[in-house]
């Protein structure tokens, strides 16, 4: 058996496994952020279970970038996904707003509580999230909240990697197939610095401006009056060629200093400063 045939057999097996997991769930509320994984999960859930047994639910708050909310809505409309936008209030939890290293636990506590209520109201049996096999070993305190609420992770259970999800998304014609990872805006604020609506708005304004200048894969890290911009190494020249416009735009968002990080954007870099005891790592399904 050639490597490519073997590989395709493994992928097919994972795909079949995903379908079996969804069928076990019977009917689902998908935690639907507009990101690659949750869009894919919602689309496959509808294909597998039918529209009447799926609801894609987007929790909206100041920490969800408006462009993500727009993507969530646009894809739901375009692909006829049953969709609900519902407010979450993690900001009202002082434990979240204090921005500890397990901030995501408190955020997801709120999200899964809200979606569990939605599921109960709509007679849908299982709440599911878009965690995938590449998340294993990452610092994922939100996963504890998911486990406490009985949230299932079908993509993780099926062993699907991000690359496999992107490939399958592309086959389905989902516009999110090549979308960069997009964690919530609170992830731009260093642990220990409070998450506030004003800071989130400032970060979003700066990032929206950078997106308008052609950058795709970057983060604006908030350091009080300074914006430390991490761009993917492949976009370094794009950032430099737009330097003056970039400085103007980020200053217009309210920052005094506009800094370009020499190491560039690295997934999970925020967690570099955490000690081993602070990490909450996602295990295998």
């Amino acid at each position: 058996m050639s490597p490519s045939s073997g590989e395709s057999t493994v992928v097919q097996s994972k795909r079949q496994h995903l379908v079996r997991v969804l069928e076990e769930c019977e009917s689902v509320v998908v935690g639907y952020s507009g990101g690659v994984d949750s869009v894919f999960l919602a689309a496959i859930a509808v294909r597998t279970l039918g529209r009447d047994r799926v609801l894609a639910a987007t929790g909206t708050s100041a920490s969800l970038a408006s462009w993500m909310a727009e993507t969530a809505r646009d894809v739901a409309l375009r692909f006829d996904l049953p969709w609900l936008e519902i407010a979450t209030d993690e900001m009202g939890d002082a434990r979240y707003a204090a921005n500890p290293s397990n901030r995501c636990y408190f955020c997801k506590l709120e999200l899964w509580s809200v979606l569990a209520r939605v599921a109960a109201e709509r007679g849908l049996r299982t709440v599911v999230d878009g965690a995938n096999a590449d998340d294993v070993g990452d610092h994922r305190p939100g996963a504890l909240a998911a486990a406490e609420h009985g949230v299932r992770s079908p993509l993780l259970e099926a062993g699907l990697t991000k690359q496999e999800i992107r490939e399958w998304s592309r086959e389905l014609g989902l516009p999110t197939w090549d979308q960069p990872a997009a964690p919530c805006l609170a992830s731009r604020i260093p642990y220990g610095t409070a998450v506030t609506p004003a800071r989130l708005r400032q970060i979003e304004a700066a990032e929206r401006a950078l997106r308008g200048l052609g950058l795709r894969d970057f983060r604006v890290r908030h350091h009080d009056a300074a914006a430390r911009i991490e761009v993917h190494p492949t976009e370094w020249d794009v950032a430099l060629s737009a330097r003056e416009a970039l400085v103007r735009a980020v200053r217009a968002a309210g920052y005094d200093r506009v800094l370009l990080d020499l190491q560039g954007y690295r997934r999970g870099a925020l967690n570099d400063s955490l000690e081993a005891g602070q990490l909450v790592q996602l295990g295998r399904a």
Partner: protein
Amino acid sequence: MAGGRDARALAASLRGLGYPVVEVDSLGGGAETIAVVRLPVSALPSLGTDDRDAIARLVREHGFRHATLDLDAPPQ
């Protein structure tokens, strides 16, 4: 914690490697110390990956967590 001395020493080290450093600022504190390296605008486009890695390495050796360029660079 990064202080004025570290920034000056870092600037000297970077000049020693041949970079036309105008100055180095330090921002932040605790786990989030930032070295802000100011280079002339003319020097920015020629900074390749190896240069960025070398500067970042030196910044970390001088006790800062983040190595950055000030994008509001002087025009020289």
